[in-house]
């Protein structure tokens, strides 16, 4: 049930309870008032009957005009009183009727009575009528006492009936109202607790814990919207770590792209320049030799002219792949130096090691067996390699490259499809 409805229900029950109690209180007061009226009336009847019976006894004893008048007066008073009763209960009505009947009987019996003013003995019938009168006096007195005591008891009964009833109703209402209040309070508290749990989870970045265990009320509506909102957030939000990872990956990819030759997938010239300086510096620091191999495809211009650029590109890629595959160590580094020219850096490698690598490289590329019918030297594609190593005579950064280039020149000069290590006396060559 909705909180609003629950509160309306509580309010309407409270209001109607207050109304009902007010009405029952008014009824109770009316009843008590009536009972008090009855009691007052019963007491005045009792008083009147007492006066009447007193005068009647006096009249029977001393029958004369004066006593008769006094009795008549009381009798009339009682008749008037009986004629105007307040609202009486059925029981009191009966008693009042009895008093009225006795009053009539007294009048009737008296009318047949012949009393003797001199007080001499009455004859049998008159004596009996007097006896009957006395019996009537007793009855009317009893009836008036009964009327009075019933009226008195009625007050007490009305009090007990009206107010105990009200107390019980009040008790039931209190139980119902307190019960309902607790119910509503518990409902709201539970809903708010669930909602709070959900909000706390979101504040901790947990977007996959929706608010649960709610009833069909307004707080549940808020929770449903909250859950929907968290759902949207969950779909659209990435964490900082994820973002960092993505950026790093993207950066890495970009860096890779910026340092990779698009055709051969080897490092490009820029990457080589950076690596070259770094390895040179490492070599100096560690005191370990650094070898540089400069590889050039023989008669590549002829190949391109003969087979076309497309095949030329494929051949370049296959040569690059062969070079990369030959390098045994992680630290070895191959790059496309430009056109059909490649460079290979072999850190911590002496000239002998470099020679072996160069030899192997020449063989491997030849063995790929890429046909080159336009070459004047061989029927397959071959490379020439210039090998240089750091040493006392490589003082500047560019010297190692220069030496490798010189050695390459020497290899080309000596007939291609071979490697040549740089010799110091080579510097004298043209």
């Amino acid at each position, binding site marked *: 049930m909705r909180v609003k409805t629950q509160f309306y229900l509580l309010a309407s029950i409270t209001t109607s309870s207050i109304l009902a109690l007010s009405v029952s209180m008014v009824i109770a007061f009316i009843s008590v008032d009536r009972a008090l009226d009855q009691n007052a009336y019963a007491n005045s009847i009792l008083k009147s009957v007492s006066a009447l019976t007193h005068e009647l006894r006096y009249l029977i004893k001393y029958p004369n005009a004066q006593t008769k008048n006094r009795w008549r007066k009381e009798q009339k008073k009682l008749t008037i009183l009986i004629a105007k009763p307040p609202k009486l209960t059925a029981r009191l009505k009966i008693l009042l009727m009895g008093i009225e009947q006795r009053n009539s009987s007294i009048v009737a019996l008296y009318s047949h009575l012949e009393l003797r003013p001199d007080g001499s003995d009455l004859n*049998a019938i008159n004596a009996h009528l007097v006896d009957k009168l006395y019996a009537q006096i007793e009855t009317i007195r009893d009836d008036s006492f009964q009327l009075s005591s019933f009226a008195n008891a009625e007050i007490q009964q009305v009090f007990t009936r009206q107010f105990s009833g009200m107390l019980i109703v009040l008790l039931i209402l209190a139980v119902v109202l307190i*019960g309902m209040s607790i119910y509503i309070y518990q409902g709201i508290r539970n809903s708010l607790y669930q909602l709070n749990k959900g909000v706390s989870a979101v504040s901790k970045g947990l977007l996959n814990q929706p608010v649960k265990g709610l009833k069909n009320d307004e707080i549940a509506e808020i929770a449903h919207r909250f859950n929907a909102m968290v759902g949207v957030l969950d779909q659209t939000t990435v964490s900082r770590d994820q973002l960092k990872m993505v950026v790093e990956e993207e950066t890495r990819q970009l860096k890779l792209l910026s340092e990779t030759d698009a055709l051969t997938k080897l490092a490009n010239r820029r990457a080589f320049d950076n690596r070259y300086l770094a390895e040179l510096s490492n070599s100096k620091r560690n005191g370990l030799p650094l070898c540089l191999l400069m590889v050039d495809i023989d008669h590549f211009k002829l190949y391109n002219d003969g087979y076309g650029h497309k095949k030329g590109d494929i051949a370049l890629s296959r040569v690059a792949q062969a070079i990369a595959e030959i390098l045994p160590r992680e630290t070895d580094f191959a790059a496309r130096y430009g056109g059909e020219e490649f460079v290979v850096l072999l850190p911590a490698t002496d000239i002998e090691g470099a020679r072996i690598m160069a030899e192997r490289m020449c063989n491997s590329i030849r063995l790929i067996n890429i046909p080159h019918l336009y070459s004047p030297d061989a029927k397959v594609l071959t490379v020439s390699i210039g090998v240089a190593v750091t040493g006392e005579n490589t003082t500047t950064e560019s010297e190692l490259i220069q030496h490798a280039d010189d050695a390459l020149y020497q290899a080309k000069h000596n007939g291609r499809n071979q490697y040549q290590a740089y010799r110091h006396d080579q510097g004298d060559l043209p």
Partner: protein
Amino acid sequence: MNKIIIAIIMVGVALATSLLFTYEETIPLKPLSIAVSRTPLSAPVYIAEEKGYFEDAGILVTLDEVVGGYRSFQAVKKGQSNLGTSSCSVMMFTGMGGDDYVILSSFVQSDNDLKLVSRSDAEIIRMEDLANKKIGVVKTTASEYFLSILLGIANIDRQSVQLIELKPEEMPDALAEGRVDAISVWEPYGFYSVQKMGKNARVLETKNLHTLSFNLATTRDYADQHQAELELVLKALYRATEFIAESPEEARTIIRNRLNKQQDFIDWIWPDYLFKLALNHSLVLSLENQARWAIDNQLTDKQTIPMFHNNIDKRALTAVLPEAVSL
């Protein structure tokens, strides 16, 4: 949590409800018989039976209907019934006869139940006109007592009238057929006579001269041994008198149907009746007065007035309705 709250509310409501309706233990109903005089005077007994007040109180009452309070008390005396409904006159004559009985409560009074109905041609207009007439009476009942009062007031010697002893149900025919000039009789026979004869019947104005009360009576032995049952009977009768006071029309209908009487008859007698439970001095006084009158007028062989006080058993009524007891 919700279930607990609902449970609390339900327990609260149940508790309050149980306070509202007092728990009554179911006990087997005690059997009891009442010889009831077949007259509207016995209305509280009939109504208590019709409305189930006896069963509510916890007693199983069977009604043995008889004509007249005399026969009702005879049934009690013979042990045919446990309780009877009889007038003061019957009680008085029974007491004079030495029977050991007790009155438990009077439950109705009427100032006009006994009537003197005469043939119009007998010309009984005043009480004095009763002299030298043939008058039907039911011996040793209120009928005889009532007639003797009228004769006394009229100052007529009993020897100067001819008393014809009749059963109450014979009265209307006896009057109509001219076997008697007048009858001294209780209801419904007064009404039957007037109804039968129409203008040929005349009712003497005697209202208020004799107050008849109808009482619930039993033998002393029974009363001593069955106080609990008697309380229950009186409880039921009290409810019946309350019902008559609160719903007089319905009460009249019940009595009319129960006694198979005409509406006219009920309307004829009902205003004279006053139904209430009581045990008071006037009951004793009334019994004593009637006894004295009976002795004086040789209506009985006895010469002393019994102590009628001893014939009142106020225990049960005091327990049920103390306000109604003033002895």
